[in-house]
């Protein structure tokens, strides 16, 4: 056997391997350099990036706004992400976003933190209206529900654990057990529901299935006969049933629609906000003005929410 210039190593499985030749190493280095150079090149020389984070309720609308704004001003890019209203406001406190989306009011202690950490007062911009709708499985025969019933089902001190306590029999539901679908605690929807239905001093009953996003609640309710859930009006689908809501025994039961939410007749309608630390400047101000213009509000309506004006 002639001696070869390459060393041949055998491993325990008997496969032969070649140690790297010099030309292999050179090729690998060249490829790495090319990849680095390609990654570093930019197509546009100056581009503003606006960071926008927060409410999952708003995330689809925010994404639609961002995509449409690219056509209005191609030099401005907006990075949209969800994570819940609490996450957006925490990011505003930490100084990592320009605009925080929120489906709830800002708390006094959050206001203070923003003032102390960024040196500016928080400014709120009302960008749309939303209605919180109660969803049940489409086979559930319930026709109306009161806010006090919701508090009885979801609240810590509530005792309604079975569909029979709401006087319905749900087909396909084992033991008529109410399965509460809720949101995680970083959600503005969760906080708004707690404030409007349970009362600020109360808490949710533990043991609810806490989903990550508005869409997840509706998805799970559509698959679970025993379930009840709450989410934004924009997330309604044909797979679930929306229940009309009455404020108390005397009030009529109001079906959640764009009109009943706009007029305030529907008990659980709320504002959706975008917060900035200090007054919006420059490109951020231009973006917020565009959102509040007719073009931006048309996108709100197309997404199933209610325009702010």
């Amino acid at each position, binding site marked *: 056997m002639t001696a070869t210039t390459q060393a041949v190593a055998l491993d325990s499985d008997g496969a032969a391997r070649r140690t790297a030749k010099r030309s292999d190493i050179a090729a690998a280095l060249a490829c790495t350099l090319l990849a680095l150079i390609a990654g570093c090149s930019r197509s546009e020389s100056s581009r503003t990036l606006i960071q926008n984070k927060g409410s999952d309720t708003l995330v689809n609308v925010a994404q639609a706004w961002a995509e449409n704004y690219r056509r209005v001003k191609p030099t401005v890019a907006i990075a949209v992400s969800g*994570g*819940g209203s*609490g*996450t957006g*406001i*925490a990011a505003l*406190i*930490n100084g990592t976003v320009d605009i925080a989306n929120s489906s709830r009011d800002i708390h006094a202690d*959050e206001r203070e*933190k923003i003032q102390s950490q960024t040196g500016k007062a928080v400014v709120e911009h009302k960008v749309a209206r939303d209605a919180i709708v109660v969803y049940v499985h489409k086979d559930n025969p319930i026709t109306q529900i009161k806010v006090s019933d919701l508090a009885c089902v979801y609240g810590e001190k509530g005792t309604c654990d079975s569909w029979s306590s709401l006087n319905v029999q749900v087909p396909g*539901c*084992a*033991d008529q*057990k109410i*399965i509460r679908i809720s949101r*995680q*605690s*970083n959600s503005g929807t969760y*906080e708004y529901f707690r404030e409007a239905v349970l009362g*600020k*001093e109360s*808490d*949710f009953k*533990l*043991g*609810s*299935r*806490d*989903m*990550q996003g508005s869409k997840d609640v509706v998805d*799970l309710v559509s*698959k*679970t*006969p*025993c*379930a009840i859930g709450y989410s934004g009006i924009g997330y309604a689908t044909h797979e679930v049933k929306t229940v009309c809501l009455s404020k108390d025994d005397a009030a009529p039961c109001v079906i959640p629609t764009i009109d009943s939410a706009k007029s305030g007749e529907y008990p659980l309608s709320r504002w959706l906000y975008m917060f900035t630390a200090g007054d919006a400047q420059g490109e951020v101000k231009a973006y917020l003005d565009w959102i509040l213009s007719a073009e931006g509000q048309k996108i709100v309506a197309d997404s199933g929410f209610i325009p702010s004006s």
Partner: protein
Amino acid sequence: MAVERALEIVVRICGYSATFFVFSIFLFVLLSGSDFIVNRLNPGEFLLSTEWVPTSVTNKRYGTLALTIGTLSVTSLAMLIAVPFGLGAAVFVSEFTAGRTKELLKVVIELLAAIPSVVWGFIGLVIMNPLIIEWLGAPIGLNVLNGGVLLGLMSVPIIVSIGEDALKAVPDSYREASLAMGATRWQTVVHVLFPAARSGLLAAVLLGVGRAIGETIAVLMATGHSVQIPHSVLDSVRTLTATIASELGETARGSDHYQALFAIGVLLFTLTFVVNLSADLIVRGARGQR
């Protein structure tokens, strides 16, 4: 000679660095939550209360018992599934296959490990959820069973790979001696190979347990994320890891809630340490008896 000395020092540093990194991470987690842990944490409430309500306006409670039981229940179910399947597969691949079949099986099993955990979570959410509702009549398909099966399937490739390596490390002379004495292949596996490869197999199972305890996104999606003590495998639970993942983003840095989540991190560390330590002692104890 000097080169030898230098290499020895480098290798020694690498060895110590592993311990150093683990300690640093533990210290970082501990210090991030230290103010809350030392001053405001009530250990009885933290460890024994089932009420985890950190965002309450009037009555904040930081009880992790329900979360710990959630983690333990899902992990135990996962191990009940993964250990027999994993060790069985390891024995099969190591002892009863050879050549092409062996290589093919090894590759396919490692492929199972390559599936990202979010895909597993998706499978649990979309495929297993309706199946559990339909086949078992459960009111909801996101529960301990769903999470446990997913974690079991995720841990199997780890147990198989390392278990197979442990069995491969047993010298052939053991097998030959056993067969020469007239034992069947199965008797060889159970009475000769398992005791000989015991610590390696235990390490395989421990790494599987570690994977299951530390898994975050799959259990976040598949267990129903519900703070309660489960009364059956068809109940939803929430794990410690999923709690940290879902809540850390919303907390302001340094707030009580933020630090409480780091306290949960310390709890997770302790849990894993206790599991590993007890397994190590069991192996030593069994070895001591011989």
